[in-house]
């Protein structure tokens, strides 16, 4: 049995909202093995994004533990968490989060500055990655000069610059039309087939086509597929 890349035990994330407590995550246990393509499914507000951000070390849980590569994120201070994200994580967001004043090439190369990579190597690597996502001829374009699908591909290229252990994508197709959404799914699947570990958060059932593993979330808890299907009959189509 392979060692797991990510292990989560009893993870809770509560938000205090005035007088009430919002239980965004209410006791999560899961494992992600290296080389898998995991899709986290769940209706809006079920805690998918919260889970993804906690796995990526962008926030801390209220209680519980997360180990990535055997290392507990609880034990890391803010600086170590930043270095952990720099070395081990690649993020893809629903809203792309490209820097509007920078070209596609500069956006892809941007994270490498913090790692102290020389500018010549940054440019070379960024060009390679843009070619990998099929955008070599758009390197000098700014985000506003690119379609949504192209912007998301730039963002995926950016997530790959540090050769991360885990790619975390939060509704990467959420802002895209069906066709470009499908292309992005295909791209993520290609990365998985090339050996990457991918975790995608989505409430789009088509995403599960590529999945090797599926996690279903309801109200901050992991549920079985059956439970999820019966519950989602009432909530999915709004």
């Amino acid at each position: 049995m392979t060692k797991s890349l990510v292990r989560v035990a009893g993870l809770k994330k509560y938000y205090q909202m005035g007088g009430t407590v919002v239980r965004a995550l209410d006791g999560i246990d899961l494992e992600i093995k290296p080389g898998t393509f995991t899709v986290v499914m769940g209706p809006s507000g079920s805690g998918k994004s919260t889970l993804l951000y906690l796995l990526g070390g962008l926030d801390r849980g209220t209680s519980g533990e997360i180990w990535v590569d055997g290392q507990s994120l609880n034990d890391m201070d803010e600086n170590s968490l930043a270095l952990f994200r720099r070395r081990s994580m690649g993020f893809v967001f629903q809203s792309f989060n490209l820097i509007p004043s920078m070209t596609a090439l500069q956006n892809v190369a941007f994270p490498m500055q913090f790692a102290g990579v020389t500018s010549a190597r940054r440019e070379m690597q960024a060009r390679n990655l843009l070619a990998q996502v099929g955008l070599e001829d758009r390197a000098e374009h700014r985000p506003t000069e690119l379609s949504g699908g192209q912007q998301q591909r730039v963002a995926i290229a950016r997530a790959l610059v540090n050769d991360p252990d885990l790619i975390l994508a939060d509704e990467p197709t959420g802002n895209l039309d069906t066709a470009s959404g499908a292309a992005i799914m295909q791209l993520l699947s290609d990365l998985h087939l090339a050996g990457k570990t991918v975790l995608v958060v989505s409430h789009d059932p088509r995403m599960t086509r590529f999945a090797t593993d599926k996690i279903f979330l309801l109200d901050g808890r992991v549920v079985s597929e059956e439970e999820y299907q019966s519950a989602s009959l009432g909530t999915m189509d709004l």
Partner: protein
Amino acid sequence: MKFFDLLRLIFGNLNRRKGRVALTAIGVVIGTAAVVILVSLAIGLQMNANEQLYGIGDLTQIQVSPTYGEGPVVVGPGGGGGGGGGAPPQQKLLTNLALEEIRAIPGVEWVVPREFLMAGGMVKYQRLEGWANIIGVDVDDLALLGLEATQGSTALGRGVVVMGPMIANNFYDPRQRPGQEPPPPPDLYDQQIQMIVSKWDAQGNETRKNISLRVSGVLKEARGESDWTIYMPLDQVKALNEWAMNRRINYNKDGYSMAVVKVANVDQVLDVADQITQLGYQAYTPQSFVQGINNFYVILQVIFGGVGAIALLVAAIGIANTMAMSILERTREIGLMKAVGATNRDVLAIFLGEASGIGFLGGLGGVLIGWLAGQAINVIAIVYLAGQANQQGGPPPSVAVYTPLWLPVFALVFSTLIGMISGLYPALRAATMIPVMALKYE
């Protein structure tokens, strides 16, 4: 993050918000320009005042006289100090030993004793009579004292004198009848003049002595004592004084009536004067007067600089505001930077750098404008002041506004620092944002 990458990122970020950066920097430009112009003006005024002041004598010279006390202090019964009331100052004569003592003070270049002629000071030239300060100095050449000649030389010797330029104006015709035009001042250079010295015996009978001397040099106007003085070798004046007093003078016992002390550096003058006073002699230097005036101009500089600094303070608030706005607008960008591995320190450095960059750019503009404006003021003011000087006499000023090199350097560092301080709070807020919150910010 590499320093050069950081710089490029900072200036890239400033560049993409040119308009706002420029508007914010204008405040800094105005403040810095104000500091540069006003402080330059204060410095210029001070230099002008000093130029005028140099007329009052060589500022590196100290005049030292002996202290004629009430004799040695008598120690009262019971020993110790005796105390009570001001003890009479201890007598300190300017003997040759004393001169050695003064020469030993660090910073002293030379010490030259001098004596007044105590047997009168009447001089005659043909039918004209005049009066002069007659001083004997122990140097071969007056050039050592910093004096210059307009005619002849400053060298002293037997039978010759070097005189100040105003002496000639002192001559009058004793037989002049009322209503008659006074004679024009004679050109005395290379002429024979008569010096009349006199003494009285116990019965009140006057003995006169006529000494014939040739004028071997006329000094340049120094607007000081030397203008009205006839200089002779010290031993000649000593001989005349001995004749007048009917006794021998021993400088090892009686001391000189005055000595001139030359200090290597203006900055040391007050210090050396202090030490001479501490040794018990009387020291006088125009520098203490100049110091007072300088203090006034330093205060003026501080006040003027303060006015500019207030303008900079207002600009600082502008920078803080711009940075706070910018950080709010770029919250998601900050979140992204953190997601891709920027540490809190990276984020802090970027935003502090941007704020400092605004301060630096504004400072650069301000220094440039301040310097140019100063040059313009100079051109106008010098023409105007020269006109004034023509009417009122005195030398025309050479500068109105003076910008020493340290001022623009200081102003640039200061404005950059102001930018950095203004950016401190916004940048700290950016650096400590929780990444998730920043990424979700709408």
